């Protein structure tokens, strides 16, 4: 479980996060949704400490991450996995080396155990026979899957995904979404996903938090979204003709 409590964040004069409090639940996919520029990435990066918050606290299973020094944070970071928006694979390393990297740095496994673990993770995301290719040589969807494999290599308790299916075709996007959901269940992780894609919300959203212009406007389940009378959320969700029709039918 991750608890965000009264977090504020500004860049110079620009207030990006305004008094945000959220409970992210373990064993669930927690989706942060909102328009482009609403502050999703800044919120996620604040939660993992890549941005320092101006005020407020972040707790990982009741451990106060915000007040920790670098050493304490490093320990918690070993329990985190993150899938960045562009995948952020190390482009000087092959697919296999990317997944081996966290194992090399932080595990006491033997070379063989590390290789087995890396291959297990790659298999888990349905990547076979590509171990020696480089990130530039594989498709965007494969890059995302390798990024997921790398993120889960050390069995994280917390998984973060920033727009995991952006730039992918609808079929691949749904595959990636479901993969994240399955892995979350399998390992009982606390998973936080940033997205602006309503398909993801419908596909895998268990707990949904809507932010708009840096404010948390709404939270609830995906079924509740259809009954909301919050105007901002309605404008966001039913922006497309397709969802307007769905709303009429239901």
């Amino acid at each position, binding site marked *: 479980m991750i608890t965000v409590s009264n977090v504020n964040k500004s860049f110079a004069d620009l207030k990006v996060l305004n008094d945000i409090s959220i409970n992210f639940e373990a064993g669930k996919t927690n989706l942060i949704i909102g328009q482009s520029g609403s502050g999703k990435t800044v919120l996620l990066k604040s939660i993992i400490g890549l941005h320092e918050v101006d005020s407020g606290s972040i707790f990982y299973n009741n451990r106060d991450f915000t007040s920790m020094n670098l050493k304490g944070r490093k320990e918690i*970071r*070993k329990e985190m996995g993150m899938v960045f928006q562009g995948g952020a694979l190390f482009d000087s390393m092959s697919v296999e080396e990317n997944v081996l990297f966290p194992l*090399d740095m932080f595990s006491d496994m033997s070379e063989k155990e590390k290789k087995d673990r890396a291959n297990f993770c790659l298999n888990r995301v349905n990547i076979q026979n590509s171990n020696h290719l480089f990130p530039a040589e594989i498709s965007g969807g494969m890059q995302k899957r390798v990024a997921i494999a790398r993120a889960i290599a050390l069995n994280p308790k917390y998984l973060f995904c920033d727009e995991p299916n952006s730039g992918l075709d609808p079929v691949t996007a749904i595959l990636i979404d479901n993969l994240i959901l399955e892995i979350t269940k399998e390992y009982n992780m606390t998973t936080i996903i940033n997205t602006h894609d309503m398909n993801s919300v419908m596909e895998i959203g268990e707990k949904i938090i809507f932010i708009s212009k840096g404010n948390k406007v709404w939270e609830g389940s995906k079924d509740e979204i259809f009954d909301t009378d919050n105007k901002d959320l309605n404008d966001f969700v039913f922006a497309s003709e397709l969802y307007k029709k769905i709303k009429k039918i239901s």
Partner: protein
Amino acid sequence: MNLFENVGKFSRFLVLVFSKPEKGKTLFSQIIREIDKLGINSIGIVVIISLFMGAVITLQTAYNMLNPLLPDYLVGYTTRESMLLEFSSTIVGLILAGKVGSNIASEIGSMRVTEQIDALEIMGINSANHLVLPKIIAAIFINPFLYILSVFVGITGGLLAGYLTGTVNLADYIDGIQYAFIPYYITYSLIKTAVFAFIITAIPSFYGYYVKGGALEVGRASTKAVVNSSILILLANVILTQILLK
């Protein structure tokens, strides 16, 4: 950003770079890789420019010494001193600032803008230390060898040019390159080379590491890195010469 702000930021960057690495074994294999990338890969360019510069220095000196009162060994002597004192350390340093510097700044800069540096940080790795320390150590280790190589190739280039054009007598040239040899000049130049190696790796790493934006900014950072490390090399050259040759 003003100079003082940059100096402060650079100092804090160096504190990160020179902290204890996560794993000694990884550091070692990274150093080997960087020696290959920064050093071995630069042998070609160092050989080519040293060969031609040695040749030109020899020919210029020979054609400027038609006065019969000047001793014949002076041509070899001048070539050796030019290579030893200045060319093989400073000029090679400037060339490498262009080649290695732009390479480092764009490599680290693109890692920044594609969030690869964030990916390292989130794993609990000190990214500045992980990415930059192996480069600095590798260059400080390998560049002195490039210096020695450059001196030898340059002197050989002079010999070849002088001999092939018939402007220099072989025996005189060989006399000249042994004339009034001061071993301390090599120490002086090796110290300069090591300092330049630090500048060539640390400054571009700094500019790459703090890139904000996209591909355009990476290009800009790489240009800035080359210009500023070149200026710093020239500045360090004056200071070190004053301190070491006084």
